[in-house]
């Protein structure tokens, strides 16, 4: 028995929509199995993990809060991946962006003019973009693997943040905890009551970004350029598109978005700097990007789905004493299922008996 792939003459539109759904379905089944293996009721587990978070207003509010940075970062990553630039360092760009954006609030804590707010955001975006331009520049100039360089820089950025909050930026009034001073009110994102939920401006920013990216990708020449370079680099050169400029552009863009997302998380939930500011948003955003099929609207939905898994993890921990780490495992499984199901878009899968026609007894 052997699995044989038969190439479809065209990409299957049906499968492009179905494959993420099948992947999610498989993950639900996997979750049920995991719960059963832990000796818990699988159906209750699945309900608590996937459905309960969306049944309360508070749950929805948390959903949006967690989904926002994921969506913002994943949008930037999608442009990178579409053009065959593998930015794995979003977590590092998020960190450095947050550090850059925090320069004003930390070093000038009494400066609370209105201009602080936009400045903080701009500096965060710039910080993230510049940090992302390091692996991009190395790839363009030397041809080094952007995967490895961007990833190494993640570790560097976390160490750098650690040094800052334990060293030069440690708050003198913080009882020697590794934290900075609290941000003043100008550098903080406030919540607004919307339909019973408390949300801040970052959610709106994410929605606007989705719309902008959707238009960019499908309707502009730039979006066309991104897609062509990713699909056929030589055809891209033939069309007069520069793959090098695209690398710099997409890395800078995704770095800026990651920095922005990180800064907004700091501004809304933490309101100072500390050694850990992100529960791995930069990495989870990678899963969101793929689950969303690198499509802006898909990413919006995928961000919400992954956010559900974060909440679900916490829910089963409190209610069923199952470790919340199950969420990370299921997220990883989900990515695998997405990749596996994506095969169905390009190929039909057949089970055939017997050996392959190309197999040979060694001569």
């Amino acid at each position, binding site marked *: 028995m052997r699995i044989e792939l038969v190439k479809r003459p065209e990409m299957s539109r049906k499968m492009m929509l179905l494959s993420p759904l099948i992947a999610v379905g498989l993950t639900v089944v996997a979750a049920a199995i995991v719960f059963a293996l832990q000796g818990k009721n699988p159906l209750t587990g699945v309900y608590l993990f996937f459905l309960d978070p969306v049944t309360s207003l508070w749950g929805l509010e948390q959903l949006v809060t967690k989904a926002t940075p994921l969506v913002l970062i994943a949008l930037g990553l999608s442009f990178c991946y579409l053009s065959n630039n593998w930015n794995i360092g979003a977590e590092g760009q998020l960190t450095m962006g947050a550090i850059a954006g925090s320069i004003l609030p930390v070093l000038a804590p009494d400066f609370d003019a209105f201009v602080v707010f936009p400045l903080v955001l701009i500096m965060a975006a710039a910080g993230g973009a510049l940090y992302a331009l390091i692996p991009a520049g190395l790839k363009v100039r030397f*041809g080094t693997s952007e995967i490895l*360089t961007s990833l*190494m820089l993640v570790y560097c950025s976390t160490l750098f943040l650690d040094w800052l909050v334990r060293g030069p930026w440690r708050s003198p009034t913080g009882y020697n905890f590794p934290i900075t001073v609290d941000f003043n009110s100008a550098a903080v994102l406030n919540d607004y009551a919307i339909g019973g939920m408390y949300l801040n401006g970052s959610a709106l920013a994410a929605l606007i970004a989705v719309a902008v990216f959707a238009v960019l990708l499908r309707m502009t020449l730039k979006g066309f350029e991104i897609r062509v370079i990713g699909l056929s680099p030589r055809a891209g050169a033939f069309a007069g598109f520069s793959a090098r400029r695209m690398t710099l552009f997409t890395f800078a863009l995704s770095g800026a978005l990651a920095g922005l997302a990180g800064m907004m998380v700091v501004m809304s939930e933490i309101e100072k700097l500390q050694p850990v500011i992100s529960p791995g948003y930069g990495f989870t955003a990678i899963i969101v990007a793929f689950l969303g099929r690198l499509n802006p609207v898909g990413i919006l939905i995928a961000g919400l789905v992954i956010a559900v898994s974060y909440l679900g993890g916490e829910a089963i921990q409190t209610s069923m004493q199952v470790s919340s780490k199950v969420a990370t495992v299921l997220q990883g499984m989900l990515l*695998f299922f997405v990749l596996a199901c994506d095969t169905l878009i390009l190929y039909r899968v057949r089970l055939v008996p017997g050996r392959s026609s190309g197999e040979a007894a060694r*001569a």
Partner: protein
Amino acid sequence: MLEAIILTVITAATPLLLAATGELVAERSGVLNLGVEGMMVMGAVAGFAGAITTGSPLFGILLGLVAGLATSLVFAFVTLTLVANQVASGLALTLFGLGLSGLIGESYVGQPGLKLPSLSIPGLTDLPFVGRILFGQDLLVYVSFALVAAVTWFLFRTRGGLVLRAVGDNHASAHALGYSVVKVRYLAVMFGGACAGLGGAYLSVAYTPLWVENMTAGRGWVALALVVFASWLPWRAAVGAYLFGAVTVLQFHAQALGIGVPSQFLAMLPYLATIVVLVAISGNRRTTRFNTPACLGVPFVPDR
């Protein structure tokens, strides 16, 4: 003093060497497996759990090997049978491995582990200076060197190694001549997984006998860079692993050596060194094109 430094360099380099050698074989067959970090950390948690559950560090090591191998099978299935994108699948493997190991290891955090015993030959091990360095290492250190020799012999002196290199060079030609590209790659990936698992188990059973979440701390990624640095030659991977081992332990000996840089910056050194090395290697494009397996990362679907 120097002896102490060399001993720590050896133990720091060994997991890198094990993982890099395995990945080197996989890449020689044309498969780019970015999931080394995930496979290593699974080996680490399995090694720790196996050791303290059975009381035998050796069993832990073996369990680590099996864990790495099993994890690699998932990757192999998705990329070789289902022909999914190798880069994304490798990332998925890493994220999955980190998550799963965190889950499995949760109950083991804080527990004391068992250390793999070091060799002790009366007379030889007691020699000054060289005694402990050459004859006082634990099993896996010697295994790592034997592995380098064995892989070199296999790749360049046996028929199987020739076939593997051919598959990595031109899978279409290999297929046309009747070789099973998929089978060769499955075996290569599994070997890589087993080695990564061994490397990870070394961390939790020999290097520091405890379990901490994400204890590989990026070593899997460094191993990937080492394969490039080694130009896919095992002996060069050994050189690279030891250079990196030296850079890694610098942070621990800094105080004794009188280096006053903050510890976080010293901890950054291995990662920065990786970047520097990658730039240096890629900058020389002639040699990289020569040595890179031509089909690295290219999915293979037999066109009938």
